[in-house]
């Protein structure tokens, strides 16, 4: 059966079309253009004070934002960090989003613009804080110059500069013009504030970007309207890697508003019309015969058989070895074994993929929801054939991202192909929900086989973990695979501290990855591989603890003495989650901890299972140590969101494959958590203020295992396959 699985690691031409010159969001970003990042060393231009701040005469402070905002709140957090060092009046802060063309023209002065891998804050905090400090120093110097006093004698608070000796005061707004003409200090020479003294950063400020989300006035890229704009609906090959065999557009071409039926590459067809609804209606009338090619027979069952070969094979594509796990397990007093599995999952961003493109002889422009404006710029350049300097991507906040729209710029490539048919005319391509869901880059499917050995005292003496499944790097970022080793799929099992370290010390440990690729596109999905690995590891540890006859929390604690940060977060979740305290009849508790994106997470869940097997999650307590907590309220919002996203996956999420194609294409079958199913979520932030961790992704990995472990407490049985809707509990 393995020979029916199309190995995408060798499918270079297809991949090139999909990702263009951009790499994956969750890893390093290779843009295909090589302009070094010089960040805050650049000179000011115009009315800037430094490069991150513009101060208006009325004292309004405009803080520039390079990263994408897709709901995760980075925009507000970054502004807080700049404002903290700037010492401006927070009530007068607004933001200005940068574009990649502008960044490129300034030799990437504003650094990396991508938002992925929970790097928005932690990847830019240092240079944006220095940027705020640069502006403060320049503004103070301008006042000192005007008053002819030493700058050291000045103080500043809330954007008001004072000279105590002469009882003079002025404002940032009044000295901004003079300040913008000064030479910025070397950012490296600046001593940043001690975070313990912060007054703007670290506080639960309200978001800066809420007002236009309440009255319908916010313009997402799907809402853009340009003079003379046409609209396109697109239908792609339902079997990945397939082709169009024939197209009959005779009927569609005569339908109202239709301008043209367009072939996009060899696998997609689009209808361009006056309105999108006309385009979509006509597209439904286009008769396409598809050639599914060699993958037309692939199904969930054949993929499962393919993955199962990886569980028993002996070769590895990346491993971690300490001691001799196999011997320790073989000689153990008690053995525990289990195999777990998780399905493909779609992102299902509420704003479907779309891109508006206008191509002229010397300019390419694009309006699109993107987690990486620079990757979109690179894709626009590659697809249009125009140099980067003649391309621009207009910035719009995204209606959700979750990893779908970082390195994977397939929709920009296709929208450019459509727009090429109408030179000079803007064409907006919108993917229907069904098409968006068909052509996702799914969370990779995987399985995990465990063996554990316990000694007579019930202590874990050996653990063997074998993950088999699809590789994100193989599809999107082959350079991430070195010498056949692809450690990314073992995220969360790492020995190295700081990123996604396993929080347990096991004397004999073997963790292995067996790469089993399919023809289905895969990519980063909020939390990426910590989702599957966190569920596998934390539910299996639960099984082992039960086999050892020990309390779930105490069994974990005994393995964590060398990982104090993991342990502290687990303890926080246990304490706030009332671990060990009595529960109402019928409610059961589970616990889990895991690490990803440089932050430590743990959770407890309170769950009931009724006599028909229906699950209700009542309450979850999540503890997070993300180092510095820039905005506690927005961190809580991200934690709450991770519960909703993670619970959707746990309870309902799956994208089955039949005849080579996805079968779950809209929310009637791809069920999403709704308000009635949302548990009460309590967020416990336990920052140790000695590192910078991520926020958007870390906590999702403990959602599934905490809930599943609570179900095991309720039923006495483990759940080794997700989603729960397919599992008969009673």
């Amino acid at each position, binding site marked *: 059966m393995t020979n029916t699985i199309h190995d995408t690691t060798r499918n270079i031409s297809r991949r090139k079309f999909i990702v263009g010159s951009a790499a994956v969001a969750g890893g390093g970003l290779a843009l295909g253009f090589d302009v070094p990042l010089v960040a805050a060393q650049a000179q000011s231009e115009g009315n800037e004070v430094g490069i991150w701040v513009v101060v208006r005469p009325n004292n309004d402070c405009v803080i520039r934002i390079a990263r994408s905002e897709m*709901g995760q709140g980075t925009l507000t957090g970054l502004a807080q960090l700049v404002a903290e060092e700037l010492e401006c009046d927070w009530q007068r802060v607004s933001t200005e989003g940068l574009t990649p063309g502008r960044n490129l023209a300034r030799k990437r002065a504003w650094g990396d613009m991508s938002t992925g891998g929970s790097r928005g804050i932690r990847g830019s905090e240092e240079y944006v804080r220095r940027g705020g400090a640069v502006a403060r120093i320049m503004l103070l110097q301008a006042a000192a110059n005007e008053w002819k006093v030493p700058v050291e004698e000045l103080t500043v608070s809330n954007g008001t500069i004072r000279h105590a000796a002469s009882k003079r005061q002025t404002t940032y707004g009044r000295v901004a013009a003079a300040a913008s003409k000064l030479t910025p200090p070397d950012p490296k020479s600046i001593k940043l504030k001690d975070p313990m003294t912060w007054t703007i950063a670290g*506080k639960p400020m309200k978001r800066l970007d809420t007002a236009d989300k*309440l009255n*319908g006035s916010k313009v997402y890229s799907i809402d853009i309207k340009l003079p003379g704009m046409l609209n396109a609906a697109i239908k792609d090959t339902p079997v990945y890697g397939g082709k169009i065999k024939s197209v009959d557009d005779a009927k569609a071409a005569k339908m109202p508003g239709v301008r043209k039926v367009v072939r996009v590459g060899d696998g997609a067809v689009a209808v361009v019309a006056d309105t999108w609804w006309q385009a979509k209606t006509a597209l439904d009338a286009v008769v396409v015969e598809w050639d599914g090619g060699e993958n037309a027979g692939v199904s969930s069952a054949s993929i499962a058989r393919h993955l199962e070969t990886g569980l028993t094979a002996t070769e590895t594509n990346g491993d971690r070895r300490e001691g001799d796990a196999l011997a320790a397990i073989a000689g153990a007093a008690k053995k525990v074994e289990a195999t777990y599995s998780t399905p493909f999952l779609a992102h299902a961003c509420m704003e479907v993929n779309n891109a508006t493109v206008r191509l002229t002889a010397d300019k390419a422009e694009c309006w699109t929801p993107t987690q990486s404006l620079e990757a979109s710029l690179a894709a626009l350049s590659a697809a249009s054939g125009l140099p980067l300097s003649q391309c621009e991507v207009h910035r719009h906040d995204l209606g959700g991202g979750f990893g779908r729209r970082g390195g994977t710029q397939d929709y920009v490539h296709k929208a450019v192909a459509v727009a090429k048919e109408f030179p000079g005319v803007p064409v907006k391509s919108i993917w229907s929900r069904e098409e968006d869901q068909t052509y996702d880059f799914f969370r990779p499917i995987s399985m995990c086989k465990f063996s554990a050995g316990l000694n007579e005292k019930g202590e874990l003496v050996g653990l063997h973990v074998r993950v088999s499944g699809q590789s994100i790097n193989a599809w999107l970022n082959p350079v991430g695979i070195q010498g056949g080793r692809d450690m990314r799929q073992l995220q969360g099992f790492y020995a190295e501290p700081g990123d996604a370290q396993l929080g347990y010390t096991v004397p004999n440990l073997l963790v292995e990855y067996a790469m089993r690729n399919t023809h289905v596109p895969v990519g980063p999905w909020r939390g990426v591989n910590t989702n599957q690995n966190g569920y596998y590891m934390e539910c299996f540890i639960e099984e082992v603890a039960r086999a050892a006859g020990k309390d779930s929390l105490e069994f974990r604690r005994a393995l964590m003495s060398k990982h104090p940060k993991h342990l502290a977060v687990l303890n926080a979740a246990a304490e706030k989650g009332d671990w060990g305290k009595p529960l109402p009849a019928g409610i059961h508790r589970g616990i889990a901890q895991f690490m990803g994106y440089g932050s430590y997470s743990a959770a407890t869940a309170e769950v009931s299972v009724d006599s028909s097997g229906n699950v209700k999650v009542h309450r979850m307590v999540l503890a997070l140590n993300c180092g510095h907590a820039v905005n506690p309220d927005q961190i809580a919002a991200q934690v709450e969101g991770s519960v*909703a996203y993670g619970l959707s996956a746990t309870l309902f999420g799956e994208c089955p494959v039949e005849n080579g194609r996805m079968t779950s294409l809209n929310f009637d079958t791809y069920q999403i958590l*709704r308000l*009635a199913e949302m548990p009460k979520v309590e*967020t416990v932030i336990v920052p140790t203020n000695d590192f910078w961790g991520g926020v958007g992704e870390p906590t999702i990995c403990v959602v599934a295992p905490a809930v599943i472990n609570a179900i095991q407490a309720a039923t006495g049985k483990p759940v080794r396959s997700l989603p729960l809707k397919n599992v008969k509990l009673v």
Partner: protein
Amino acid sequence: MAKLNINGRQRELAVEDETPLLWVLREQAGLTGTKYGCGVAQCGACSVHVNGELVRSCSVTVGSLKASDRIVTIEGLSRNATHAVQKAWAEVDVPQCGYCQSGQIMAAAALLRKTPRPTDKDIDDAMTNICRCGTYQRIRAAVHQAAGNGGTTGGTSGRANRKS
């Protein structure tokens, strides 16, 4: 040609009868606050009011509407976002990406019109729109706040002393 009463204005729009109200609002009437999410009345991002009733506009054709039917979209819910639901949404800082929130706000406004003091069960039953960012907990709190019930769903460490 469709004759529609949208946000108190009578509009004549050149469009085929079979076109869903959603797309007429977005493409002909220029009101893009109402969002496309699924097209099959599952997600509720396209929620509007027709004669005061909550309607998923992706699944209503303009041909089925009369010129006298009063259509209200997010843009027409209030002047300057002063509806109690909009104010509560701002106070509780509900939105993340914001894409679904027009529909959530329209659903909440329709709920409170019929049930001014909803219980959690009423909110569960009425608020069935999908939010992928997962703002449900804050939606619940904001509906209670808009109803004057006070916040009944709290528990996040940052929310008790929110600034600014």
